[in-house]
């Protein structure tokens, strides 16, 4: 890919971000490529060293706050015609419900991502509760001179303790996975607002 191709693609993929922001980034990458070529790299090699354009774009998106993206989206179509306003008002029941639907869709994806982690934490918690109940119950039984039953209760408590430790570790892993997934999904949402044809 030539330098110009790279910059053109980047510009297209970032369309929707504030214009001065895009300019500044394009200048930055252009300088980076030029400096590499001055060191003796070919244009192709210099562009390659910057990295795949997908990585560059998703990194930029993950660093840009969502409100800025939305604000820019609204600003880019500021002057409404009279008929547009009429249509907007009349169509309110339609577009508002669509907007709510879209927002709840996004929300539900996050719920799905987190529900597994949440339920695992719930299981961990209930295991931990059962440990306390079994051990306390066992002690009570011992004091009621039901020695064997008491020992059985306490041993069950220890087994449950083992389970709850395992579940605790699994829950932590699951939460980490959920965080990672949420981040990726969030970038996807952002890229829905940003970028021209091939966002």
């Amino acid at each position, binding site marked *: 890919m030539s330098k110009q191709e790279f910059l053109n693609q980047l510009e297209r993929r970032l369309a929707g971000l504030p214009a001065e922001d895009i300019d500044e*980034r394009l200048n930055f990458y252009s*300088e980076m490529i030029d400096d590499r070529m001055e060191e003796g790299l070919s244009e192709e090699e210099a562009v390659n060293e910057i990295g795949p354009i997908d990585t560059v774009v998703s990194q930029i998106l993950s660093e840009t706050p969502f409100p800025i993206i939305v604000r820019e989206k609204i600003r880019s179509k500021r002057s409404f015609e009279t008929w547009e306003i009429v249509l907007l008002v009349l169509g309110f029941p339609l577009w508002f419900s669509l907007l709510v639907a879209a927002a709840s869709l996004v929300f539900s994806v996050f719920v799905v991502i987190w529900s597994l982690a949440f339920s695992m934490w719930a299981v961990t918690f209930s295991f931990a509760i059962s440990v306390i109940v079994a051990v306390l119950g066992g002690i009570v039984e011992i004091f009621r001179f039901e020695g064997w039953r008491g020992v059985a209760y306490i041993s069950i408590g220890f087994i449950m303790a083992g389970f709850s430790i395992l579940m605790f570790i699994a829950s932590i892993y699951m939460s980490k996975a959920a965080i990672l997934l949420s981040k990726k999904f969030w970038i996807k949402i952002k890229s829905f607002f940003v970028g021209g044809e091939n966002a």
Partner: protein
Amino acid sequence: MDIQLKRGLLDVCVLAAIKNEDSYGYKIIKDMKPYLELSESTLYTILKRLETADMLKVRSVEHNGRLRKYYHITSAGLKRINDFREEWKEMVSIYQFVSREDDSNE
């Protein structure tokens, strides 16, 4: 490495790269390469953050018929480096404490 810790380290490293003389993007990346692998987009974000925090100033200089941005450290930037070194002294003493515990166990 912890993300928050790494972010702080990167900020200080970039400041250190322009401490002695003004530098430009690609040179900063090259200078840091033996110690830290830094991507262009990460560097851009760091430079932006440091500029907003008034720790560095940017000026464009004509170079081979194009503009190149040079980054100049401010007194706030120098202070950040010194703060970091002070903090690190504490970290080192904690590290020595932790390692000593390690040795006595073996």
